[in-house]
C-alpha cells in the first residue's frame, strides 16, 4: 500500500491477548523469530506506545493493511489459524501488503475464471492500480506467501485462478514461509540492511571462503575442493548438479600422523542477542576415530587476544554421507567460531569435509530426525522416529504418515520414558514444534515447513480419559526395532502437513535425505501474556472497583468514594464514556469540524443567494413602478 503513513516502526509493539490459545501464542512467537532472522522487523511487548498490534482470538484469521494509527490495532488468530505461515501472512498485511494477485499487472501472470467464483465473492479478485499499490520493482511472485491458492473462493471443484505458466499451477498458495521475493519487497519497503538474528552463512562457493581463516599452531590446513577420491564425490550445496561448481572444505587424514589437527576459524562476529545456533554438514570419509571439535574464540577487554573455549566434540561421525549437526552457543562478546579436525588413530582413505555452515542468533532445535533413502518411503509406508526426551524429561516420538496419496501427515506421540514417575501428568502445556527442513545452503533462503501442537492437560479422549495422561496408562504397547517394548500414547497432529508435490520441491529431500527438526518446550509461562502497562495501584481500591469492569484497557480507580474508569489515550485517539466504551479520535474531530463548517457555509451561502435574489426582485419591481428611483438605485445591487 502506497503511503509512508502506513508504515510501522522497525520494532513493532504487540500484545498477545489472553483470549489466544496457548498453541497460538507459541506459534506467534515462532513467527516473530522468522521476521527477526530474515528481515529488519522486530517485535517487543507493548510498553505504552501510541500504536501497537493486539493479537487476539476472534473468529477467523484476519488483519488490517498497514499501520492504521488507531492505537490498538487488532489482528485475529482464531481456531485453526495457529500455523506459523498464517501468522506471517497476517502480519505481512499489517506491515502494508495486499494479496499478490491484486497487483496491477496480475492479468499478465494469472487468469481469473470468474464463473467459478462463489457468488458475491467476485470483489475479492479486484486489482489495485499502481496509484494505490506499489510492487516495489519486484516481479510477480507465484511463490508468495500472500498469494491466493488456486481454489480460493471456488463455487465447485475447479480452480478460480489459473497460472499462465502451468508449472506454477499448484505452487500458488504456499503457506510454508516467506518467499525470496516476499523478503525482497519487505526489506525494500522498510529499508532493511540487516536483521537482528542472522550472523553468517557459508557454502564455500567463493574463493575467499567467506572470510574464514586457517589457524596457525595446527599441523595441517583445510583445503577448498570440489571432490575427494575417498569421498565425498561432490559438495553438499549443489550436490554435483552444477558443472565446475560446488566446493567444500576438506581435511585430509589419509596421510599424516594420528593427532594431527587442522583448524578453520570464522571471521570476527558481533553478537546482539547472546545466544546462537551453529549448523553445518559434515562428511566423514576418513578413519572411524577422526572427529571434529567446535570452539569459540571470544575477545574481551580482559583477554584481547581471545580465549579459545571448546563447545562441542563430534565423535563417531557416520561415514559415506553428509550429516547435519547443530551446536548451541551462548556468546555475548565478539568472537570467532573455530572448526578443528583431528586425525584419530587407525587408517583413513579420505578425511573430514565440511559445507553449508550457518550461524544465527536463534534457538537450535532440540533433536534432529534424519531419514535416509526417503524417496522410496514416500507414498509407500509410515515411519516412526527414534525416541527423544524433551528438556522437561518427557519421552516422545514422531509418526510420519507417508502412504496417503496426496498429503504427508505428521503426529506427535508421548511415549513411556525413564522419568515418568517424576513428571506431571497429564502432560501440561508442552509445545512440540515439528519442522521439515528446506536444506538450502543459506538459512535466509529456506522455506521450511513447520507445525506446532501443544499438550492441553485438560483435554479428554472419546472414552473420557485424559489425552495427555501417562502413556503407560492410556497408551498402547509398541516395540522399538531392537525388540524393547514401551507404551505409546495417542498421536496428535495433522494429516495435511505438506503435499507430496511440495515435499519433492525445493530442497526438502537432498541427497535422498530428509531432516525433521524437533523442539518440545514448556510454554506454561504464556498462560497470561496481556501485559497492559498499569502505573495505578489497584490493591487499595479493591472494594469499590470490584463491581466495575472498564472496557478497552481502561483502569478502574476510586475518586471521592466512587469507582471511575481512567481510559487509555494516545497521540491521536482516546476512549471515553463511563466504562471507556466509546472511542474518539482527532481524525473524527477534524472530519466533524470540517463537515460542520462546510455545511454552515453552504447553508449561509444559500440563504445569502436567496436573500440577494429576493431583494433584487423587490427593488426591480419598485423601480419599474417608480421611474424617479431608477437613476439613484440602478447601481444599488
Amino acid at each position, binding site marked *: 500500500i502506497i503511503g509512508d503513513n502506513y508504515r510501522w516502526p522497525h520494532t513493532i509493539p504487540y500484545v498477545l491477548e489472553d483470549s489466544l490459545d496457548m498453541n497460538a501464542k507459541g506459534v506467534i512467537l515462532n513467527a516473530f523469530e522468522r521476521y527477526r532472522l530474515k528481515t529488519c522487523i522486530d517485535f517487543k511487548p507493548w510498553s505504552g506506545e501510541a500504536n501497537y498490534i493486539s493479537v487476539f482470538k476472534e*473468529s*477467523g*484469521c*484476519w*488483519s*488490517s*493493511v498497514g499501520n*492504521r494509527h*488507531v492505537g490498538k490495532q*487488532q489482528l*485475529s488468530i*482464531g*481456531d*485453526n*489459524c495457529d500455523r506459523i505461515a*498464517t501468522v506471517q*501472512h*497476517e502480519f505481512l*498485511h499489517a506491515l502494508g501488503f*495486499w*494479496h499478490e494477485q*491484486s497487483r496491477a499487472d496480475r492479468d499478465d501472470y494469472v487468469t481469473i475464471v470468474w464463473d467459478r467464483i*462463489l457468488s458475491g465473492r467476485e470483489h*475479492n479478485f*479486484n486489482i489495485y492500480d499502481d496509484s494505490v499499490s506499489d510492487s516495489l520493482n519486484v516481479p510477480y511472485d507465484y511463490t508468495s506467501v500472500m498469494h*491466493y*491458492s488456486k*481454489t*480460493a*473462493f471456488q463455487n465447485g471443484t475447479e480452480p478460480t485462478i489459473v497460472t499462465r505458466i502451468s508449472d506454477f499451477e499448484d505452487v500458488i*498458495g504456499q*503457506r510454508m514461509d516467506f518467499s525470496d521475493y516476499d523478503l525482497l519487497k519487505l526489506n525494500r519497503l522498510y529499508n532493511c540492511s540487516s536483521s537482528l538474528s542472522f550472523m553468517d552463512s557459508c557454502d564455500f562457493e567463493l574463493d575467499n571462503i567467506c572470510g574464514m581463516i586457517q589457524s596457525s599452531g595446527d599441523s595441517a590446513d583445510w583445503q577448498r575442493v570440489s571432490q575427494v577420491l575417498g569421498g565425498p564425490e561432490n559438495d553438499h550445496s549443489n550436490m554435483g548438479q552444477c558443472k565446475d561448481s560446488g566446493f567444500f572444505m576438506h581435511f585430509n587424514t589419509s596421510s599424516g600422523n594420528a593427532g594431527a589437527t587442522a583448524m578453520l576459524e570464522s571471521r570476527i562476529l558481533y553478537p546482539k542477542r547472546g545466544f546462537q545456533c551453529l549448523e553445518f554438514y559434515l562428511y566423514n570419509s576418513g578413519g572411524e576415530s577422526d572427529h571434529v571439535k567446535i570452539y569459540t574464540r571470544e575477545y574481551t577487554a580482559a583477554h584481547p587476544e581471545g580465549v579459545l573455549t571448546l563447545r562441542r566434540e563430534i565423535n563417531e561421525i557416520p561415514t559415506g554421507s553428509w550429516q547435519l549437526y547443530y551446536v548451541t552457543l551462548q556468546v555475548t562478546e565478539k568472537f570467532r567460531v573455530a572448526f578443528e579436525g583431528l586425525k584419530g588413530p587407525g587408517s583413513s582413505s579420505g578425511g573430514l569435509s565440511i559445507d553449508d555452515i550457518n550461524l544465527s542468533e536463534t534457538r537450535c532445535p532440540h533433536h534432529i530426525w534424519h531419514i535416509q533413502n526417503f524417496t522410496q518411503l514416500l507414498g509407500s509406508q*509410515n515411519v*516412526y522416529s527414534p525416541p527423544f526426551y524433551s528438556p522437561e524429561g518427557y519421552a516422545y516420538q514422531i*509418526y510420519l*504418515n507417508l502412504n496417503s496419496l496426496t*498429503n504427508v*501427515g505428521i*503426529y506427535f506421540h508421548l511415549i513411556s520414558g525413564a522419568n515418568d514417575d517424576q513428571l506431571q501428568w497429564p502432560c501440561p502445556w508442552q509445545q512440540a514444534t515439528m519442522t521439515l527442513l528446506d536444506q538450502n545452503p543459506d538459512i535466509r533462503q529456506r522455506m521450511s515447513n513447520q507445525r506446532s*501442537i501443544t499438550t492441553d492437560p485438560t483435554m479428554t479422549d472419546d472414552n473420557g480419559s485424559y*489425552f495427555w495422561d501417562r502413556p503407560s496408562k492410556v497408551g*498402547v*504397547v*509398541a516395540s522399538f526395532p531392537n525388540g524393547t517394548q514401551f507404551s*505409546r500414547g*495417542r*498421536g*496428535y*497432529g*495433522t*494429516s*495435511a502437513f505438506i*503435499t507430496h508435490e511440495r515435499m519433492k520441491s525445493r530442497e526438502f529431500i537432498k541427497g535422498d535425505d530428509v531432516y525433521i527438526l524437533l523442539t518440545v518446550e514448556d510454554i506454561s509461562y504464556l498462560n497470561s501474556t496481556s501485559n497492559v502497562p498499569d502505573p495505578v495501584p489497584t490493591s487499595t481500591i479493591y472494594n469499590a472497583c470490584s463491581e466495575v469492569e472498564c472496557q478497552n484497557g481502561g483502569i478502574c480507580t476510586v475518586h471521592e468514594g466512587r469507582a471511575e474508569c481512567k481510559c487509555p489515550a494516545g497521540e491521536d485517539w482516546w476512549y471515553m464514556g463511563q466504562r471507556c466504551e466509546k472511542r474518539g*479520535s482527532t*481524525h*473524527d474531530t477534524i*472530519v*466533524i469540524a470540517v463537515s460542520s463548517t462546510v455545511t454552515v457555509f453552504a447553508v449561509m451561502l444559500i440563504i445569502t443567494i436567496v436573500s440577494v435574489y429576493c431583494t433584487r426582485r423587490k427593488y426591480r419591481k419598485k423601480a419599474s413602478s417608480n421611474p424617479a428611483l431608477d437613476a439613484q438605485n440602478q447601481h444599488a445591487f
Partner: protein
Amino acid sequence: LPAPGEFVKDIDEGLDRDIFDINEDLGLDLFEGDIKLEEQGKNS
C-alpha cells in the same frame, strides 16, 4: 492393536484448509477474505 493411522487425532480433520477456507466456513465476509477494513472511516 489399533493401526497407527487409527491411534491419532487429526487436528485438521482430513482437510487442508487455507486462511480463506477457514474464514468462509465461519461465514466471515471480510475484504479479500482476511482483511479487516477499519470502521472508523465509514463512521466519520
